[in-house]
């Protein structure tokens, strides 16, 4: 967990999604740090998180990840937080903001999807077989993973300078944790949680995103009362990587309207 940027600025907490760690927010953080107080963290099981905190059964539930987000805000005694959840973490954001609206006063969902699997008339874009295929791809690519790799990941230097705080081992995650995280997040269904979001919400989606297609962004927007939706003219699921300036400024405008 790291807190960087303007100490007296509005608090922006950035939650990463599946497949990576807080490094994904590097570009956005560098742009926002002069104006905002940025809170970054790795979900338990990802990046440089403490391996001892991992529990395969507990972390098979979205609510556990969401509770961790609330815990961080409590531990740092943060209020008036804008919580930004990317991809699968957007629904963790929905759960966290609903549980603690006294701390999270604004919510930003970056390329969100409340349900990846098709269901009746709802088109999430995927089938459960596709998720099995993802797990298979994880297995194929973690063949070379060994215990020695884990220590590289854990050995995150705790240096405050912005330019040197990112770990060298970008997005390396223990395969056992990645499997649980993938299953939990991609098979979850949080559609029923959307109407209950009690705080102002901004949905940022990408014009061309095969993971969270346009109709899903529209669905989230329709389901969250009073939400605002901004579609960025970009491609891919990670606009904070492909278009960091645009993503950062869209976040900034919502946190502190100019």
């Amino acid at each position, binding site marked *: 967990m790291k807190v960087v940027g303007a100490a007296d600025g509005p608090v922006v907490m950035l939650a990463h*999604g*599946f*497949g*990576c760690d807080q*490094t*994904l927010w*590097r570009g956005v953080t560098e742009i926002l740090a002069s104006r905002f107080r940025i809170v970054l963290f790795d979900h338990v099981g990802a990046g440089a998180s*403490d*391996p*001892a905190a991992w*529990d395969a059964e507990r972390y098979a539930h979205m609510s556990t990840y969401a509770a961790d987000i609330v815990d961080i805000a409590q531990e740092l005694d943060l209020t008036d937080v804008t919580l930004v959840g990317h*991809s699968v973490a957007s629904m963790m954001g929905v759960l966290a903001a609903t549980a603690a609206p006294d701390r999270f006063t604004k919510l930003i969902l970056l390329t969100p999807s409340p349900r990846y699997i098709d269901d009746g008339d709802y088109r999430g874009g*995927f089938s459960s077989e*596709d*998720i*099995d*295929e*993802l*797990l*298979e*791809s*994880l*297995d*194929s*690519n973690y*063949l070379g993973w060994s215990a020695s790799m*884990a220590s590289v990941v854990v050995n995150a230097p705790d240096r405050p300078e912005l330019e040197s705080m990112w770990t060298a081992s*970008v*997005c390396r995650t223990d395969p056992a944790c990645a499997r649980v995280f993938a299953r939990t997040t*991609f098979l979850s269904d949080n559609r029923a949680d959307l109407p209950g979001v009690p705080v102002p919400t901004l949905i940022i989606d990408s014009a*061309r995103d*095969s*993971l969270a297609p346009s109709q899903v962004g529209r669905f989230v927007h329709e389901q969250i009362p009073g939400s605002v939706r901004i579609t960025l003219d*970009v*491609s*891919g*699921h*990670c606009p904070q*990587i*492909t278009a960091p300036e645009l993503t950062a400024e869209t976040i900034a405008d919502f946190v502190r309207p100019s």
Partner: protein
Amino acid sequence: MIDDLDVEDLYENAPCGYLSVRPDMRIARLNSTLATWLGFEVDALVGTDFGELLTVGGRIHFETHFGPMLLMNGKLDGIALDLVTADRRRLPVFITANVKIDAAGRPVLIRITALDARDRRTYERELVQSRTRAELLAKTLQRSLLPPALLPPSGMTAAAHYRAASRDEVGGDFYDLFPLSDDCWGFFLGDVCGKGAAAAAVTSLTRYTLRAAAVYDENPVAVLQNLDSVLRQEFRDANAQFCTAVFGILSRTDTGFEVSMASGGHPPPLVLRADGTAHYVPMTGGQLIGILRHARFVPATVTLEAGDTLMLYSDGLTEARVGRGRYDDDGALLEFATAHAPATPAAIVDDLRLLLRSFGDGLADDAAVMALGVSPAPDSAESSEG
């Protein structure tokens, strides 16, 4: 230019698939080797999304993991993905990529090579399957060596927890609790040297020997001597196999249970008293079971009254690495027991489970814990004054 340095030919007919994509992942160009592998005309693919060449699961993996890594690190090395051909077959490849950037450091083009990985991936899938089978086998075997449920006598509760240090090897710790007669119960907790299949065989033999011996003998020391003879007889020619264990018999008294135990080289149990104190059962000095002629086993008897709990554990707990030392180097376990006393078996085992988890990688060996407790007197909780 001489023929063998024809760059166009080197590109088009390279022994690997070669393509370049724009930062938005649209295909800018690909060589004829790759087009042939995929069964498409080159022109049919130019301008399409690279992700569409992948399986759906592979595309999710690429979008969430490899793509961001590629753009952040500027390269990718040897990742395994499946391409999908025109006739919907899967073509396993290894992908390597790097990013071409402009003067401002922005990506302008991504160069990707694909190596045919059909044979390698078949082999790797077999390896993964073998490992999965080995893990399943270890898990099943492990489960067969531990009781599916503990069956305490009425008036008593019991709880146990097992934490394996390794996912694909059977551990060497074991425990059980079982009825001998209406008022008499047997229990044990022990640790076989080593792990894996050889240790599992010893564990299995140890378990049924102890259960059978308990039926014929009421003296715990005699039960351990019986086990000692069996282990020495069984492994006399091969490598000696030995274990440590505490074996005990619970006998009902008017107000609780008398616990008659014997230890063979095993760390002494703890008693958590109803009054909030805790102490070790004095039974050190017993010798390893199965390798020594005339091994000596140490008896001890304690009584458990309402609210008292007996706690047994293996050295995986006490010898977990913490910092530069081991967990119990300075008496941490007795402190832990004292801090949690009084405690029901379920409560103390739950706390031990959290303690074991907190060791993380420091838990070098398997750890087993079992707690047996006399239920608190029903009126003691309600008889508080005022």
